[in-house]
């Protein structure tokens, strides 16, 4: 259980970015945070990851206070997939994924064959074994994102935080990543992701948090929270939510979709 209680945060000499944020989620949940630019989504993620210290409030994972544990221990609880990763030196994919094992090393120790087999397993699970000896810097955006997810998985933390995991990807890679996220939450990982596309809430998440001006506007299941009324208010623009029922020669599928009214 990840519990966030009354988080407040401000940048140096600036106004409050996060005014009062509280929510809970469990392992196996996939939480999508939606909100306009500059509303504090990324800030919230960075507070959960411990990059910033909140002005007030507390964070718990399984009743463990996150502000009282070392970065080393925190890394075993939460992993991070950043928006885009920029690795300058020619590390191979395998080496990059192996970096996720660092938090499990004791000081001065070497990586063992156990660490290597965890990497093997993770790569196999995500179907990226064929990339292992390629240079990370030569991969495509979609492949890079998969490797970043693999690195987070090799960290063996139960919660994974993803900052706009699909932001710079083409359509097919977006679908691939969203699908992976769904599979991971089914496998028991707790996932928090931010997104600029409210449709992502329907495709892979079971919880949605709407953030505006540093407050939580609404929180709950996508069916309940992602509504025409809420989205229109959230984005200050006319957005409707429609039912999509597919019944053609290819698919039989029912979902909801968000439609901008222009």
């Amino acid at each position, binding site marked *: 259980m990840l519990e966030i209680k009354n988080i407040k945060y401000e940048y140096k000499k600036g106004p409050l970015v996060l005014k009062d944020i509280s929510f809970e989620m469990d392992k196996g949940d996939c939480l999508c945070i939606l909100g306009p630019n500059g509303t504090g989504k990324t800030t919230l993620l*960075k507070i959960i*990851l411990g990059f910033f210290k909140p002005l007030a409030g507390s964070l718990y994972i399984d009743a463990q206070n996150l502000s009282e544990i070392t970065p080393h221990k925190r890394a075993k609880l939460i992993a991070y997939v950043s928006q885009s990763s920029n690795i300058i030196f020619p590390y191979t994919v395998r080496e990059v994924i192996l970096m996720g094992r660092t938090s499990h090393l004791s000081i001065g120790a070497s990586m063992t064959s156990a660490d290597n087999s965890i990497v093997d397993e993770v790569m196999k699970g995500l179907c990226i074994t064929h990339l292992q000896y390629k240079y990370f810097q030569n991969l495509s955006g979609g492949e890079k994102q998969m490797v970043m997810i693999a690195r987070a998985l090799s960290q063996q933390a139960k919660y994974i935080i993803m900052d706009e995991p699909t932001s710079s990807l083409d359509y097919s890679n977006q679908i691939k990543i969203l699908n992976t996220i769904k599979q991971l939450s089914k496998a028991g990982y707790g996932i928090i992701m931010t997104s600029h596309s409210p449709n992502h809430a329907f495709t892979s998440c079971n919880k949605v948090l709407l953030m505006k001006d540093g407050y939580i506007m609404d929180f709950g299941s996508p069916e309940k929270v992602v509504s025409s009324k809420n989205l229109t208010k959230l984005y200050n623009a006319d957005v409707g939510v429609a039912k999509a029922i597919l019944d053609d020669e290819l698919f039989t599928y029912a979902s909801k979709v968000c439609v901008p009214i222009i």
Partner: protein
Amino acid sequence: MKNDKFSIRFPIFVTILSICLLILFIISFQIGSYPIEANVLLDVLLSKIMDIRVYWDSTVEKIIMDVRIPRIILGILVGGSLSVSGASYQTLFKNPMVSPDILGVSAGAGFGAALAMINSGTWAEIQISALLFGLLAVAIAYLISKVSGTSDITTFVLAGVIVSNFFNALLSVVKTYADTDSQLPSITFWLMGSLGKGDTEDLIRIVPIVFVCIAILFICRYYIDVLSTGDEEAMAMGINVNIIRTAVIICSTLMTVISVSICGTIGWVGLVIPHIARMFVGARYSRLLITSFLMGGFFLLLMDNIVRGVSTVQLPLGVLTSLVGTPVFAVLLIRSRRGKENA
């Protein structure tokens, strides 16, 4: 599909490099105005630990023990230290164009040495002054970046550039006051770098520092890899970024400053060697550390042998490393750009 070529290549490469270094080490004794045969060298060295009948001249022993050995080993250690510092800074700062003097060490040390020289300091005083001002320069750069309130590495590097320029200006001031007959030439020669002044005491001073620093860097090897992906990602992977970064900077700075204080500024080694090492063994820091040290030691010893071998004029070591280093770097640059296009 390529195999992981570096895992296979690395042990072979290190073995070859070690053998080359050993051979060069032995050859180095032959070079100079007083050549020493290999069997005499071996006997002299062995006589220190075993009972061997002395059949050689005492001058030979003196040259081997007091002149050649310090100079040769210093060459290896200085070359190795500068290269390892360069490799560490490059990985840490996520910038392949960084050299060990990026934070102002060399400029500070140059000023310190010059200051001691115009005050007619002894060799030991010159060294200590170079050491202190080298450290002072980095400390000032650190303070500037601290005062700015940001903890990001770019500020630190920029502060290093500022401090470097400031100390270079101070150095020019000292130069204008220097006596043009004796002090100015010695300052100029110091700045061009030379292993000629190193003695056994320098060796005794540098060995433990280099050993401890490299040991600490080796312990941090995985953390340094992780730091090269960025501060936030490193933090999320459980690294205490500030502690590791400080440790790496302190170790690299110490190795650079001790090297510079003994042999003046020697350019390009710390920048070029890590690049060549990376081409052979990949980016992983643990491999880069070992390879850079061996390659850097080999390179500087080779350059110093050329300096000693050309008897007509003693070319300054720092000038020679730049003369060789720059074209090598140009070739590397062209190769890597071409490689990228083909990939």
